[in-house]
C-alpha cells in the first residue's frame, strides 16, 4: 500500500509529460543562445514576425466581434437548431487545416467570382495579408465561440433574471452582470484564438504562402537551409505560446 493509486496514475501519465517537455528542453539545450539571438534581428525573421502579429491581431478582433454574440446565443437559446449551429462551429476545429485551405480556395481563390472581384478592387484574397487573415479566422475563431459559450453558460441565468426584475434591460444586464462574470472565460477564448492564429500553418500554406507568417517561415528555413535555421522563429513562437499559457491560467 505504499504506492497509492493517484501516484500510479501520475507515473503512467508521466510518459506523456516527458514526451511534451523533453523536446522543449532539448531545443533550448541544443541552441547556442548568442547565435540565435543574432539571427533574430535578421530582416526575414522580423518580416515574418510582423506579418504574424498583424494578421493574428486582426483575426482575433474579428473572431471576438462576431464570436461573442454567437457564443451568447448558443449559451442562452433553447432553439431546436442550437445543436446544428454548434456542429457548424466545431466543424472547423475538427477539419484538417489543409482541407480548410482547400474549401476556402473554392470561394476566395483567384479563379472564383469572389476572388476575382476582390482582385479587381485591389484586394487580392490569396497570397496577401487578407488571405492570411481569412485562413486564420476560419481556423481560430471557433475557439472564441466554444470557450466563451462555456463561460456564458457558467453565468447563472438567475442572475440575469434578477437584474432584469430590478428594472434593468437586456443591454444593461449584459454589461453589468453577464460580461463581468464571463470575463475570465472570454479572455481564455480570445487568448486561445490568438495563439491558434499565430501558429496557423496548413490553411495559410494553401491561401497565402506569401507574405510569410512565422510558421511558414519555419518550414521554408528548414527545407532550404536546415533545422538550425528554423530555431530563431521557433523560439519566438515558443515564447508567445508560453505567454498565452500564462494568461490561460
Amino acid at each position, binding site marked *: 500500500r505504499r504506492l497509492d493509486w493517484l501516484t500510479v496514475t501520475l507515473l503512467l501519465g508521466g510518459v506523456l509529460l516527458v514526451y511534451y517537455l523533453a523536446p522543449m528542453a532539448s531545443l533550448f539545450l541544443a541552441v547556442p543562445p548568442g547565435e540565435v539571438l543574432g539571427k533574430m534581428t535578421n530582416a526575414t525573421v522580423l518580416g515574418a514576425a510582423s506579418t504574424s502579429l498583424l494578421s493574428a491581431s486582426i483575426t482575433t478582433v474579428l473572431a471576438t466581434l462576431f464570436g461573442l454574440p454567437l457564443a451568447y446565443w448558443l449559451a442562452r437559446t433553447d432553439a431546436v437548431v442550437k445543436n446544428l449551429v454548434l456542429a457548424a462551429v466545431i466543424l472547423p476545429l475538427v477539419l484538417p487545416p489543409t482541407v480548410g485551405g482547400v474549401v476556402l480556395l473554392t470561394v476566395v481563390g483567384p479563379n472564383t467570382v469572389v476572388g476575382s472581384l476582390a482582385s479587381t478592387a485591389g484586394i487580392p484574397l490569396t497570397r496577401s495579408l487578407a488571405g492570411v487573415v481569412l485562413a486564420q479566422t476560419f481556423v481560430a475563431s471557433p475557439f472564441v465561440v466554444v470557450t466563451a459559450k462555456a463561460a456564458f453558460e457558467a453565468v447563472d441565468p438567475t*442572475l440575469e433574471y*434578477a437584474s432584469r*426584475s430590478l428594472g434593468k434591460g437586456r443591454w444593461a444586464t449584459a454589461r453589468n452582470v453577464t460580461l463581468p462574470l464571463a470575463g475570465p472565460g472570454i479572455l481564455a477564448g480570445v487568448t486561445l484564438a490568438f495563439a491558434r492564429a499565430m501558429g496557423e500553418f496548413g490553411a495559410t500554406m494553401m491561401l497565402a504562402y506569401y507574405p510569410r507568417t512565422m510558421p511558414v517561415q519555419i518550414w521554408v528555413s528548414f527545407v532550404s537551409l536546415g533545422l538550425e535555421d528554423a530555431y530563431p522563429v521557433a523560439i519566438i513562437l515558443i515564447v508567445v505560446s508560453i505567454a498565452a499559457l500564462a494568461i490561460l491560467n
Partner: protein
Amino acid sequence: MSLELEGLERAYSGFDLGPIDLTVDREVLSVLGPSGCGKTTLLWLIAGVLQPDAGRITLDGRSIEGLPPERRNVGLVFQDGALFPNMTVEANIAYASSDPAYAAELAELLEIEDVLDRRPQTLSGGERQRVALARTLATEPDALLLDEPLSSLDAPIRRRLRSELHDLFDTIGIPVVLVTHDQRTATALGDRITVLRGGNVEQTGPSTAVLERPATRFVADFTGNENIFEASVAARDPETVTLRVGDVRFEVAADADSGPAVGSTLTACVHPSRVRLRKPAASLDPGEALVEARVRRWLNEGDEYRVVVELEHAPLTLTATVSPPEFESLAVDAGSRLRVVVAPDAVHLITAERPDGRAGTERPRQD
C-alpha cells in the same frame, strides 16, 4: 393596489401549471406546496422571467403579462438571493436604486449596514436573504414576490427573520406573494394561504381556515393534520354530526350547508395539537368526548412531544402533540393507559375529495 391572476397557464417540463386564478390585495399570500409543485414557476410567471402560455396578470389595474420583467415593477426575491457576486453588497443595492438615501434607509431597516462593503459570497444565509430583500425593496416595487425566503437557514436565524419579515410586510402595504414548502412559514407570515399540488390550486383561504378546515386529504396531510381516518355517520342533528369508528363515537360541529346522510362514510381529520391527553382518571369538561387509549410510542421533538396512542375500542391510531410540562405531568410511557379528549370543533370533515388521477409529479404514497 392589487395583483390579479386570471387563468394563468404554463406547460413546463413534465407537468402543467394552472389554470390559476388568484387575487392578492394589500396582504400576504403564502403559496404552500411540496417541492416540484410549480411554486417557483408561478412567481417567475408573475415577474415576467417566464412567459405564460395563457392567462392574464393585472397589477394595480394595468395588464402586465406581455411586458418584459424590467417594465413590470414587480420585485422578486429569488431563492438564495441571486446576489451579483461581482459587486459588493452596497453595489448590489445601489444597482437597484438611484436614491442613495433610500438605499441607506433600507440597509438600516434590515440591519445590514455592517456588511455593506462585503462580497455576497462571504455572507451568511440570513444576511444574504436580507440583502436580497433590501435590493428588491430599493426598486420600490408595486408587488413583492419571495421564493422560499426562510429555507436553508438555521433555526434561530429563521425564527428571528420570520418575525422581522412579519413586521416588515405589515408596513410596506403592497401585495406580497411568498412561496414555501414549510407550513410554519406559510402560516406565520401569510394572511391567506394557497395550497398548490402538481401545478393546481388545491385550496385557498385565510391561514387559520386552511389549517383547520383542509378541503382535501392532501391539504390535511401537508398542513400537519396527520390524524386522517374514515368514519361513518351515526347520527345527525342541525348542530352536530355524530361519527362512529369501531365502538367509539365522536361529536363533530356540523357546517350549515354540508349534510352528510346518516349511514354514509366520510373522511375526517384532527390536528395533533387538538388531540388532548388526560390521565386515566381525569374529569371531563362538558361536551368533551373521552376515549380510552394506550400509548404505542412517543418522540421527543424538543419543543413538544409527539405521542402516538391506539384507541382501545376502535381500530384507530391517533397522534397527539403535548408540551413538555404536560408530558411530564401525564407520565407517558409506551404501553401506559391514557384518555383521549377530542373537542367537537377539533374534528373536521373533508368533503371535497380531489380524484387521485389529477395529482401531479409528486407521489406521496411511496414516501
